[in-house]
């Protein structure tokens, strides 16, 4: 279960970060395509929180191993 949560957190972080980057570029190319229907800042907040959780869950484990 612990391993599952670690993997899930890691994947969620990278996928949401990549999603935010792609949506940001799409919004730059076609203004309003994303922002007319969805607030990108919400996704950015989600990415930042997931990033912090990911550091806590995965990186601390790696430090202990070293």
């Amino acid at each position, binding site marked *: 279960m612990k*391993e*599952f949560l670690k*993997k*899930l957190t890691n*994947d*969620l972080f990278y*996928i949401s970060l990549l*999603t935010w980057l*792609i*949506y940001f570029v*799409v919004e*730059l*190319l*076609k*203004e*309003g*395509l*994303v*922002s*007319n*229907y*969805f607030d990108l800042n919400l996704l950015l907040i989600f990415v930042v929180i997931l990033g912090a959780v990911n550091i806590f869950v995965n990186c601390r484990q790696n430090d202990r191993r070293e």
Partner: protein
Amino acid sequence: MKFYKYIRLVLILAPIIFLGILLYKDLILSGRLFVAYDFCHSSPFISEFSPHGRVLDIEWVKNNNEKYCQQKMVIDPVYFDVRLPQRFNEARLTVWYQKNPETKLKIGPAVNLSAWQWQLKDINYIRTENNWQVGVVDYNIQSSKLDNNRLRFLVSSPGLDTSGQSIIFKKITIEFIKTPIASWSDFVGRLKEFILFSRLKIIFQ
């Protein structure tokens, strides 16, 4: 954890499907876009009234069981912009307002901003809703020049400042209409127009 690959697949597919839905919504295959601004919450399509000073601060009103926002226009003219995802042929504007019968009210989109040409029309009063007058106007916006994908509207009431009157606005809705997609060639045309409205327009230039 054999099932984890399926979870990963869902995590990857979800944002792709969501982007597809956004594209579908932005293409407006039905040919109808309905936008609204209620003065309480900012709208991604319709901007706030400007310049400030000609319109007073937005007021939050709690009246009996009804909560709403309103804004007073005290000096003419004021403007608002509508950010459009593509070109449209017609626009039907509905406005909820309060004013004296002798106070004139005209609203219209810009035809050519650089030439300061506007398509101003009187608001056609249609009914009263909870002390609010509701008016409708139809515009042909085929020839309107957009400024950075934005259609600017002018709200005019000549002599408003000298008369000491004001016009209170509660809500604005605009329905943009164009021909719906009926065939594959329509879709290709719409897609081309969609790209022309984006920064990818250099492909066709």
